[in-house]
């Protein structure tokens, strides 16, 4: 059974989320296999001045610890990464992170568009982008870039979102391959992981 027509050539999963996404994220991180094969790279809107506590909160239920990468840290398979507070997080060619303190984008730092767009550039059609609940339009452009480069796009079903502005904006801007609720996203990731086993 392979209802999502998946294959094992994907290199990474990027997830963007904002207001109302915390619960969904923790469910995803607790629902996927312990030895999940791909790196999961998350950019979630968060308080700029609060450096500590968020990764710890996410890690409590997560199948593996969530870490904030340092600048130029290599991206490893099966790790779960979170964009640190007050930095934009980009993916560099050569499979590492770059951080930056550039101007806010969409009123946000970290901005989801930056993480998604640079990931799309590096991973091309080997990328899966997932956009969750949120109250602004950050991430829509990034999802468009993922689609343009041949990647797979998934949004949380607006009906399943606490605040649906973000996935709705992405659906308006670009073609979305799958519109799923959180349980659907978990099933998708489990099925994806099976391709690698």
């Amino acid at each position: 059974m392979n209802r999502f027509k998946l294959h094992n050539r994907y290199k990474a999963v990027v997830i963007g989320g904002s207001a109302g996404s915390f619960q969904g994220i923790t469910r995803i991180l607790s629902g996927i296999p312990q030895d999940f094969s791909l790196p999961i790279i998350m950019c979630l809107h968060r308080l700029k001045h609060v450096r500590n506590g968020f990764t710890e909160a996410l890690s409590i239920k997560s199948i593996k610890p969530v870490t904030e990468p340092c600048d130029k840290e290599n991206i490893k398979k099966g790790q779960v990464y979170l964009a640190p507070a007050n930095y934009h997080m980009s993916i560099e060619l050569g499979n590492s992170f770059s951080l930056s303190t550039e101007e806010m984008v969409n009123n946000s730092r970290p901005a989801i568009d930056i993480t998604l767009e640079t990931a799309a550039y590096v991973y091309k059609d080997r990328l899966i982008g997932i956009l969750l609940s949120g109250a602004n339009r950050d991430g829509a452009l990034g999802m468009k870039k993922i689609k343009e480069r041949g990647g797979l796009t998934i949004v949380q079903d607006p009906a399943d979102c606490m605040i649906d502005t973000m996935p709705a904006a992405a659906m308006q801007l670009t073609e979305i391959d799958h519109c799923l609720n959180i349980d659907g996203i978990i099933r998708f990731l489990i099925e994806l992981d099976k391709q690698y086993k």
Partner: protein
Amino acid sequence: MQDIEIADIRNLTQVIKERYNYDFTNYAMSSFKRRVQRVIDLYKFASVGHLVSRIKEDPAFFHDFISEITVNVTEMFRDPSFWRVVRDHIIPNIMLNHDTISIWHAGCSSGEEVFSMSIMLKEMGVLNKAKIIATDIDKEILDKAKKGLYAVKHMDLNEKNYIRYQGTGSLKDYYEEREGKVYMDRSLVANVSWREHNLVNGPVFNKFDLVLCRNVMIYFNQTLQNEVLKRLHESMFKYGYLAIGSKESLIWCEIANKFIVVNNEEKIYKKIKE
């Protein structure tokens, strides 16, 4: 809009290097590309090629280009917990053995970090013992920094940071607000020497007890980070301190073994070997 190709970036950095002796070859690609795109949008160039031609022909424009691609987003007392460690541990440690303290702000941008340092030292009663040098690649931003003139809208965040830092007074003690602008008390930086300096190919010009180079090397690739760290290392007295950004790391650098970690959370290192 077409995405900028890496070949375009290579061509651009090559032209700049040959014509102006600024070397952006080893800047981090993701952010450099974004900065170039920003200039293209700002000046409405039709392509990278048009930008390159303009840079070739127009030195005045090149300096505007430098100002625009340099990231000048900063805050006073950014990472308040960092400043508490500097106040409570680093400065007292340096002062144990010296009567004076020499400080280098490498990549000082619009000067918020320099004013933060001066305010901290003043509240500690040691500002007159400090010799501070502040450098940046961008001459225009240095002129701005010297003036200590800021937009009111940024002060809210600066005030919040100062309160979290737990200063002895109020940030308002150090500036006046006139006509929607904030004028910092310039006596704070009376002894600061502001200089244009390029970390990538500039000379080692002095030795310091404390070097702050926070969120500057993140715009470089690892090759360049290695080179710049060597330069910073040469610019430090043995047992001097180096502060980098809270999410930067030295551990991948070739000369990491010449430093020890003093505070990993705040990314403060101490030079232990020449």
